[in-house]
């Protein structure tokens, strides 16, 4: 918030006061956000600064709390799917999948094989788009302006492909309970096939432009070291955990869909720092390409939506189910509890970013403000997902 300090309405607000209670005298208390270029939207971080050193930081959430879990109670299962695209606009299909998968598990619905492949392909494409978005935005945080332009150029190619079956660019509501809304047409598959080698050829450019750049290396190496133990205590997953050397990927750990049939590597890094997370994400993009390539080859012909797929007025069977998928930011989980009504009784969405961000307070302690920004970026935040 760019306000003067005397009449800063945040200075007297509940969170700041609460935070300031334990602040040391003479330290500067600074509100980063809710509108701040480096907090990716509306995250707010209150930091206690001693000079440029962050003594303490407390993320404050809820500036984009959009009541998804409440809406899940109000809307029927099928009606809730569009929400999933809005929980995490970066990796919308992952969320689509988590929710749809949970309901399918609950109702014991078998998804056609082609639909599973379509899900894999689109989800991995979406993962690439998400990582590209992160890459560009992260470098923007670190002060490099051009990478985000290149990243978005490449991301547009992915979006163009995904637009064919889904019809939208960002907030997909593409998966249905029992399949997907639309098949990938020949045009789309042709584009995907063309995209894979093209995108592979782009990766060295990323390396040349910044990955190897000495300034970037100095900025992210050794910054924000997260020990595996901390990941465990905070429940961090995804690239954050893998960047700390934890070989945990839901696609491998509790295999779902067609992933067991696909050959890919789960990249991990022993560096444990921002660099490790950076590397993991860069390799993940390559691996996603591999997955897509194989899935395209293996994909059978057939239906993409199970016969008699649930309509909006469908009654969800009683019971509970937890389904998790590997999202771009980590483990996306959907826990559904149904009492047999049209609306799911209770839907709990496990947001990976939520857990990853809770690490921030611990990791940022004692760093320089600029490093805190670098750490925040390396956690890959999508605020709507965290606030839900």
């Amino acid at each position, binding site marked *: *918030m760019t306000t003067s300090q005397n009449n800063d309405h945040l200075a007297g607000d509940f969170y700041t006061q609460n935070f300031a209670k334990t602040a040391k005298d003479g330290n500067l208390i600074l509100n980063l956000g809710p*509108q701040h270029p480096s907090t990716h*939207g509306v995250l707010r971080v209150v930091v206690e600064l001693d000079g440029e050193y962050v003594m303490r930081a407390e993320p404050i959430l809820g500036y*984009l*709390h*959009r009541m998804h879990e409440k*809406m899940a109670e*109000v809307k029927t299962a099928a009606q809730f799917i569009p929400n999933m695209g809005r929980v995490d606009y970066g990796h919308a299909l992952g969320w689509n999948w988590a929710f749809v998968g949970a309901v399918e598990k609950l109702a014991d619905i078998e998804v056609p094989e082609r639909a599973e492949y379509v899900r894999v392909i689109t989800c991995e494409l979406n993962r690439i788009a998400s990582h590209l978005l992160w890459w560009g935005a992260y470098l923007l945080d670190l002060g490099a302006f051009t990478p*985000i332009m290149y990243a978005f150029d490449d991301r547009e190619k992915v979006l163009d492909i995904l637009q064919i079956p889904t019809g939208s660019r960002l907030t997909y509501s593409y998966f249905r309970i029992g399949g997907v809304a639309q098949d990938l047409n020949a045009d789309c598959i042709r584009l995907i096939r063309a995209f894979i080698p093209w995108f592979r050829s782009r990766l060295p450019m990323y390396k040349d432009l910044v990955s190897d750049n000495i300034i970037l290396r100095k900025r992210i190496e050794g910054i924000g070291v997260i020990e595996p133990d901390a990941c465990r205590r905070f429940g961090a997953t995804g690239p954050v955990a893998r960047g700390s050397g934890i070989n945990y990927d839901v696609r491998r750990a509790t295999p779902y869909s067609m992933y067991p049939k696909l050959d890919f590597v789960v990249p991990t890094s022993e560096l444990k720092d921002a660099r490790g997370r950076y590397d993991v994400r860069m390799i993940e993009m390559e691996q996603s390409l591999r997955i897509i390539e194989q899935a395209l080859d293996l994909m059978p012909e057939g239906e993409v939506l199970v016969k008699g797929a649930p309509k909006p007025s469908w009654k969800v069977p009683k019971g509970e189910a937890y389904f998790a998928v590997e999202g771009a930011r980590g483990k996306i989980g959907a826990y559904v509890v149904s009492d047999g009504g049209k609306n799911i009784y209770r839907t709990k969405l496990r947001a990976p970013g939520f857990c990853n961000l809770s690490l921030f307070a611990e990791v940022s302690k004692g760093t320089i403000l600029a490093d805190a920004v670098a750490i925040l970026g390396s956690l890959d935040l999508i605020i709507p997902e965290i606030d839900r």
Partner: protein
Amino acid sequence: MAAQSLLAQKPDVITADPILNIGPAKQIVDLCRSMSLWPMTFGLACCAIEMMAVGMARWDIARFGAEVFRPSPRQSDIMIVAGTVTKKMAPAVIRLYEQMPAPRWVIAMGNCAISGGPFKFKGQYGIIEGVDNLIPVDVFVPGCPPRPEGLLEGLFKLQEKISGKRFWPNPPVNGPFEEGK
């Protein structure tokens, strides 16, 4: 400041300096204003990504002089409210609007900002149903999220509002859509 109480009092719209509001001077300055709309780096939700996309190479809002995304409200001319405004965020939005120097404009981008969009339902407890309840909005760009073209169109509409003239052709009609060079 409760979000509720904020809803009641809409901030005044300060008009521009009187010196520059006379006759041809105003016309010229208005023209310049419409051609140099610096947005604030202010993204809320999904639409913010599309807002970023507009700044990126494929659409390049820079062509119309609006790529100078300023992080400080003091230096920006338009606020693109891109995303859901929650009740928690509302005071900040108003605050940011108040911090912008006149003349200032607001574009409500996306359905959430216009009316609450998909998050408007009976019993909702967290969002503001339309940012025009908080601050005066000049241009509305619907969509969920709107395509970048939509936001550009919104920008043109705003330019039209400021300068009284549309400078660019109307959107392409059914014509051959070609990737331009």
